[in-house]
């Protein structure tokens, strides 16, 4: 979902939004700014921190 940070300060505070776009995933992943697609998907899925991944 997209969230207008300027309308919902409480959510922006809760998810520690210091700049936009900021992406927060329920698995704990956080991305500030834009990334190339492959890296973005990796970060969103949290697979970079997945120890089972080589």
């Amino acid at each position, binding site marked *: *979902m*997209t*969230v*207008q*940070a300027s309308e919902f300060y409480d959510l922006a505070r809760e998810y520690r939004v210091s700049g936009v776009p*900021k992406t*927060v995933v329920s698995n704990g992943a956080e991305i500030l700014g834009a990334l190339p*697609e492959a890296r973005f*998907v990796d970060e969103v*899925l949290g697979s970079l921190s997945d120890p089972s991944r080589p």
Partner: protein
Amino acid sequence: MSLLSPTDQQTLRDSFAKMTRRVKLLFFTQAIGCETCLETRQILDEIAALTDQVVIEEGNLVLDKDRAASFGIDRAPGIVLLAGEDDEDTRIRFLGEPAGYDFLSLVDAILAASGGSEQTLSDASLAAVAGLAEPITVRVFVTPT
């Protein structure tokens, strides 16, 4: 007064012409304490005026609280995208007024939900997402400018 210029309306009409199934914008609003609900409704009305493939259903966040909650909406304005005749839940949501850049995100989401846009994710990305074992929620915080 219209928010969209005649040129923008025509551009959007051309894009929406590629939609292959209906998209319903389930819009949760509230009468009091929502500064952007009226303008959000106007934006959605202007989109729906450009194509028969977009319909709007309005719900009241206070009166239809349980229904809103069932879609994960707990504040207004909140928009849920449902696709097809059976209102399949696309799981796409917008919280706040879809203004500025977010307006384009809404248009893109409508097109994606309706099969009216090309798939842009790579096969590798699609495979990675398909491998998810549990649903995740992705919140993207934005501002209009």
